């Protein structure tokens, strides 16, 4: 699709964000109706109105902002680490063909492995602290970043590399001025996937090892059978995810204003 086509606005005076919000509201209203009419048991899914009503209680009584900041901080640390090490690993594997041939399958296999089950091992290595959670998020999220970096580097159009060669670029210039910016859109796909994996694992391990954060809060509330509170806490996890994706989108637009 061309940029001109991509920038075509939808129907006049209806911004996409408004359509998104309206869709969400309609889904919530349908859920509310189905639960109120007993098509869905309220003991499995509480009505959205009850979840919204529990926000104040969860925020005040459960110190949700402290937990929110802890989960956000863990995600941020894991995100920075996986961006730095994932991209570096991908570049290294693309540069050293033997390394790529030897390890790419293993990295891909690691992406499919349920690493969260290895949490006791991570607790033995890092102790019962935030680093266990961060490292689990980091390792689980590393493969997509590495694989997408390799893919992005390999799919750089040959003519762009030849333009660099025709201008006598050094290998370092060739990398920073051509290969890396050309691969950025694909690398960002990897980082996005990585952040999803990281967030899932971080919240999952918080849930499992009962060490603070939103994951522990979800566990606590679920054990108390506070369903509305549990779903409210899940909304805060979604908020972390939304914040990350908005920041990432801004970063991508800054680095690659247009494709």
């Amino acid at each position: 699709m061309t940029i001109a086509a991509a920038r075509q606005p939808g129907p006049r005076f209806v911004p996409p964000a408004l359509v998104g919000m309206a869709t969400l509201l309609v889904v919530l209203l349908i859920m509310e109706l189905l639960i109120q009419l007993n098509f869905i048991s309220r003991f499995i899914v509480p009505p959205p109105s009850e979840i919204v009503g529990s926000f104040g209680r969860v925020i005040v009584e459960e110190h949700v902002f402290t937990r929110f900041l802890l989960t956000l901080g863990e995600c941020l640390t894991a995100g920075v680490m996986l961006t730095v090490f994932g991209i570096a690993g991908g570049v290294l594997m693309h540069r050293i063909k033997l390394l790529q041939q030897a390890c790419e399958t293993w990295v891909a296999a690691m992406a499919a492995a349920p690493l969260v089950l290895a949490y006791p091992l991570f607790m033995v290595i890092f102790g019962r602290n935030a680093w266990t959670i961060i490292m689990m998020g980091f390792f689980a999220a590393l493969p997509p970043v590495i694989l997408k970096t390799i893919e992005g580097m390999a799919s750089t159009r040959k003519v762009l590399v030849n333009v660099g060669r025709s201008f006598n670029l050094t290998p370092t210039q060739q990398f920073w001025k051509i290969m890396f910016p050309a691969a950025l859109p694909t690398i960002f796909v990897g980082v996005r996937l990585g952040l999803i994996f990281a967030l899932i694992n971080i919240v999952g391990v918080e849930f499992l090892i009962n060490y603070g954060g939103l994951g522990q809060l979800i566990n606590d509330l679920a054990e108390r059978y506070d369903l509305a509170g549990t779903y409210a806490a899940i909304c805060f996890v979604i908020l972390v995810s939304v914040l990350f994706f908005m920041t990432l989108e801004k970063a991508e637009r800054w680095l690659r204003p247009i494709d």
Partner: protein
Amino acid sequence: MASVPSVNDAILVADDIVVRFETPEGAITAVDNVSLKVRPGEFLSVIGPSGCGKSTLFNVIGGLLAEHQGVVTVAGETISGPHKSIGMVFQEESTFPWRTVTDNVGFPLELVGMPKAQRIERARHFIRMVGLDGFENRYPGELSGGMRQRVSLARTLASEPKILLMDEPFAALDEQTRLLLGDKVLQIQQQLKQTTLLITHNITEAVQMSDRILVMTYRPGKVKRIVDINLPRPRTSEIVGSEAFGRYVAQIWSDLREEASRGMQDEEKHALEHPSTAS
């Protein structure tokens, strides 16, 4: 009869270039003993049917293909790789999509460490030259194919090469845009007295722009003939309607026809022998 410049007159000399490729079906000689000389300020086109080794020759002269026999010299200096005196414009779209038009054109100036303000001013000079004023802050994704090729041309010109080497730069464009861009290239070439070597398979384009045309044979690519184009300068695309232009086109086509037929027969034979690889 073509006037061949002496080695001393020439700024670019390719001498006895031979390129062989190993393929699953055996060794192929893509370019066979091709020699050419280009005078300063001259516009020379290399024309031949598809598969005659034109782009291979482009890569050899541009220093992108090291595995060849023969020597390429620029102003007497033998070159063994990409050379700052040769600016290349490629057949495929080659602008950097993450840079604006100004940043694309300023790319070679950035490499030599020119201060930003001076770089922008210089880039704008070349943007104006290719007729893209007003598009300085646009990205390539917002431009048409012809405009992007003009950005590539401006970027190459910004490096102020002694020799402009172009490989079918308008091949992907429609005929009308091609003729108009031909005008633009001619105008720039005459303004800068730019030595230019154009690789093309388009006879009209070659006759419209060139001082001389080197006709190549189909595989292996050899020099079949060099034709002097004695059409008046300055030229524009209006010249394509003249009688003299038509005579040159007919003359070149009579040379090319046999080669193009051989190429077509070879492709058909290959398709019959290797049905899975035929497109």
